C-alpha cells in the first residue's frame, strides 16, 4: 500500500517533475472574509492584502520544485461581532487541483464538536464549533506549478461582515533544495 512518500514520488515522476528536493511536512492555509450573508467561500484564490497569518502563499500554486500531499484538512472560524455561525452545521467542501475535483462535496462538520459522529477512530475530543481537523484516508497530491483552489458551501450564512474562515491543508511535501549546485 502506497504511503505519502511513495505516492508523491510516483505522481511527480509521472508528471516529469523533479523528485529530488528537501522532504518536509508542508502546511498551507488561506483565510477569507466572505462578507455578510455569504454561504459560498473560495479559498486559495485571492491573496492580495492578506497578512502572513491569513495566508502563507502569494499565488494558488506551488513553486516549480515544490509539491505536497493533502492528508489533513483544518478549518477555523471566527464568527465575527455578534455572529452566530459555527462549524457544526452541514457544509460542502470541494478541492480542485488543476481542472480535477479531488475532494467532492465533503462534509467536515461531522468532526466538529463532540457528538460521537466524527470520522476518526481515536478522535481527540478537542475539535469544537470553531476549529476542526479531518484526516483523509487517501493521499492527494498537489504537483508543482498546478493551480489549486477550494470551495466551501455553508448550510448557514455568515450573518455578519467580519466573519473569517480559514482553510489549512497539511501533509508530506517537498521544497526546493539547492544541494551542491550553488
Amino acid at each position, binding site marked *: *500500500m*502506497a504511503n505519502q512518500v511513495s505516492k508523491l514520488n510516483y505522481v511527480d515522476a509521472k508528471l516529469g517533475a523533479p523528485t529530488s528536493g528537501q522532504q518536509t511536512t508542508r502546511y498551507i492555509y488561506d483565510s477569507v472574509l466572505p462578507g455578510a450573508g455569504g454561504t459560498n467561500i473560495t479559498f486559495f484564490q485571492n491573496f492580495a492584502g492578506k497578512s502572513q497569518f491569513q495566508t502563507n502563499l502569494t499565488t494558488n500554486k506551488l513553486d516549480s520544485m515544490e509539491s505536497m500531499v493533502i492528508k489533513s484538512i483544518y478549518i477555523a472560524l471566527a464568527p465575527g461581532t455578534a455572529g452566530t455561525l459555527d462549524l*457544526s*452545521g*452541514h*457544509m*460542502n467542501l470541494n478541492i480542485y487541483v488543476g481542472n*480535477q*475535483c*479531488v*475532494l*467532492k*462535496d*465533503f*462534509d467536515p462538520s*461531522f468532526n466538529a464538536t*463532540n*457528538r*460521537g*459522529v*466524527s*470520522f476518526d*477512530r*481515536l*478522535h481527540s*475530543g478537542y475539535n469544537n464549533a470553531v476549529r476542526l481537523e479531518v484526516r*483523509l*484516508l*487517501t*493521499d*492527494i497530491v498537489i504537483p508543482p506549478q498546478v493551480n489549486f483552489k477550494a470551495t466551501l*458551501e455553508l*448550510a*448557514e450564512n455568515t450573518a455578519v461582515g467580519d466573519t473569517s474562515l480559514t482553510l489549512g491543508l497539511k501533509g508530506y511535501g517537498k521544497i526546493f533544495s539547492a544541494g551542491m549546485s550553488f
Partner: protein
Amino acid sequence: MAISAQDKMLYVANKLGLTSLKDMQGSTRVVYDQSTTAALDHVLFAGSGQRNFPLTNLGANGNQFQVDEALLVEQIGFFIPDADDGENYGGLGVLSVKFDLVIGNKTVIKDCVVEVGGQQAFYSDGTVGSAIITLEGVGILIPPQVEFYVRASVFNSTTRVASSSRVGCYLFGTAALLNFNTTI
C-alpha cells in the same frame, strides 16, 4: 498481509468489469442524507436526488454514483437533525439505530445496530458516546451507477422501545472520483 481499501476497490471493480476505475482520482468521501420528519422507520438516500443541500450532499445523481465513481464504505454514522431545515444536527443522545444497507438488490448489512456508545473500545469523543460503526474487515464497495439506500429504525438504547425521531446517516470511506485521462 492485510488487504487495503484500494486493493478491495480494484478487486471488486475488476470482478464487475469496471476496467477504468483504476485510473480514476482516489479520494476520501462522505455522503449523507437525512429524514427531517420524526418517524419510527426511515428510508435514507432513496429519492435523495429530489432533495437539496443541506438535506443531502448527493446532488442531482441521488442515491447512485455516476460513471467511474465509487465509495468503499468504511464507517457508518447516524445523527439527529435539529430541525426540518436540516442545517444542524446532534449525536444520537440516548437513541440507537437498527439499520440495513442495501446496494442494488442486495442487502449487504442486515439488521445491524449502531448502539449509542457502542464503539468505545477504540473510539473516544470526549465524554460523548459514539454514534458510529466502523465496518469490520476492509469495508463494502458501492459501485458506480447502482442504487443504494439505508433502512433505519430508531429506538431507545436502554429500554429497547421504538422511538419516533428525525434521523440522518452518513457513509464514509475511500472513494474514486471521475477523472478524464484523455482529452474530451
